[in-house]
């Protein structure tokens, strides 16, 4: 009986390297989807990633492509520099919600508004992960974190930011969509969106952003399955999935 391999690590994932992410964290799934998109488009040698500050700061330990670090929130500016000098390369940022929606809000808005031909993978898990579960701009009203222990209060902290909807109001960005990796059926759609966001850049179309609703069981204080259930029941009503803008 011949052996048929039906599942293997993506080629652009570093061989023999395991990630540091907590059990049930969505980063691992999202990383894999990015790797699969890069593999399927055949762009491994032409891709330059820009790492965030936060849980995914060490993404370059896992992705077998050229990679650059950025200070907290500045990945879209670093990507702008890379893409300006090397428009022939595929440049993408991978950022969390603290990185992109808080300290780096100016950089993402202006990169989007320039229609910079880069791909942005934006992981929204409604909390700061690496620093131990503090409030993020995306934290839901009433959600408890270490810096809003009684639950986020809009009168003090404002409202959770819907980044995709906000960026979609700009004329320049081409493709903005929100997906999730909470269940396999959604993950397959997330894969399509991520691949399309890279494909857009291959075709020289302009700015693409994929917001990925993801989980943080450790800082949400939940078991992994419970965390994905909470994502579906609590996050998705406020952060609806969908395509907010497309090139076509």
């Amino acid at each position, binding site marked *: 009986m011949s052996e048929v391999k039906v599942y293997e690590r993506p080629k652009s994932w570093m061989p023999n390297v395991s990630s540091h992410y907590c059990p049930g964290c969505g980063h691992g799934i999202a990383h894999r989807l990015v790797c699969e998109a890069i593999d399927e488009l055949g762009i*491994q040698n032409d891709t*330059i990633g820009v790492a965030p500050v936060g849980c995914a700061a060490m993404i370059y330990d896992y992705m077998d492509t050229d990679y650059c*670090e950025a200070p907290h929130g*500045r990945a879209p500016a670093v990507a702008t*520099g*890379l*893409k300006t*000098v090397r428009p022939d390369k595929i440049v993408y940022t991978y950022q969390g919600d603290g990185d992109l929606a808080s300290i780096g809000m100016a950089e993402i808005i202006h990169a989007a508004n320039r229609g910079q031909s880069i791909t942005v993978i934006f992981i929204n898990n409604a909390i700061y992960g690496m620093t131990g579960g503090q409030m993020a701009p995306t934290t839901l009203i009433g959600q408890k974190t270490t810096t809003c222990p009684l639950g986020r209060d809009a009168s003090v902290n404002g409202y959770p930011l819907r980044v995709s909807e906000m960026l979609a109001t700009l004329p320049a960005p081409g493709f903005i969509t929100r997906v999730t990796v909470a269940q396999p059926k959604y993950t397959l759609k997330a894969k399509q969106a991520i691949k399309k966001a890279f494909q857009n850049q291959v075709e020289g179309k302009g700015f693409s952003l994929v917001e990925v609703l993801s989980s943080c069981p450790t800082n949400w204080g939940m078991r992994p399955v419970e965390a994905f259930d909470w994502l579906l029941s609590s996050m998705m009503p406020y952060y609806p999935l969908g395509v907010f803008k497309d090139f076509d």
Partner: protein
Amino acid sequence: MGRILMKGTEAIAEAAIQAGCKYFFGYPITPQNEIPEYMSAHLPEVGGVYVQAESEVASINMVLGGGATGYRVMTSSSSPGISLMSEGISYIAGCEIPAVIVNVMRAGPGLGGILPGQADYLQATKGGGNGDYNLIVLAPSTLQECVDLTQLAFDLAQKYRNPVMVAADGFMGQMMEAVEIKPSPTKDQPADASWALGFMEERGGKRSHLHSLFLAPEPLEEHNRKLQKKYAAIKAAEQRCECFRMEDAELLVAAYGTTARISRSAVNNLRAEGLKVGMIRPITLWPYPYEAFKTIPSTVKHILVAEMNAGQMVDDVKVATGCRYPVSFYGRMGGFAPSVKEIEDECRRILAL
């Protein structure tokens, strides 16, 4: 191109283009706006790109990304803008990315004013950003030197994979002088594919990662030791200093940049009166030219430091001379420069002691 009359900022910009810089990322701030303006007008002529960033924070990080490709990139700003760039500069140094940063200094602190200053000396030479890192800091004293040091900055940045700051001041930026700008011989130097991003194919599929994050203490200390070894090599090879009428001098004026050209006039006037005064002018503020200070003649009895700040270089002079001489200071702040007469008077006062 022969000698032509140019404004300092524009001369710096043209010198950068002639050095092969095709990518400029900037944000307007007085008194250096002619640099981004010049770049926006002239980079397209050489197939280059000017990107106006949304802030100094963004522009220095665009430089980080652009420099990570190994090509020649640049930004310019003035003091408060450089403060905003400090985070990015630390990362660029930590990631060992070549970049040229022009600081047309103005008086501070805070917003300060828009008139010239030299009060960023400590920020430029002793840090500014976090961590153990050093910039190479070049201080031009004439517009021709603005041109030459800007071109040298690109060579040093790429040679050492380190950010280099051209620390001019508002006078250097805004005055006009005849300069000659030649295409740099290294202009067509290709990007270094051995480490730069975007050359994975050329490296046979071998990736390159540029980062300053090392969570474990051992590799972080090792990274720092490697950086310190590089800084030691720069200290050994790149000190630059001008010694002016130093032989038989009893009093030395230590000054750089605009203050040095003012001091030069004072020294010439005092020499004409028969007073034994000379000048020592650091061209590299980092690495500080300690070797040149070792050549101070035994006739010297006193050193006067002159700056457009409150005395930021004084400690470096004391260290460079092993505190063997009395060191005094004369400076002006707020956008004033010491006048030739003020420095002459200060020298006369010291010599009469």
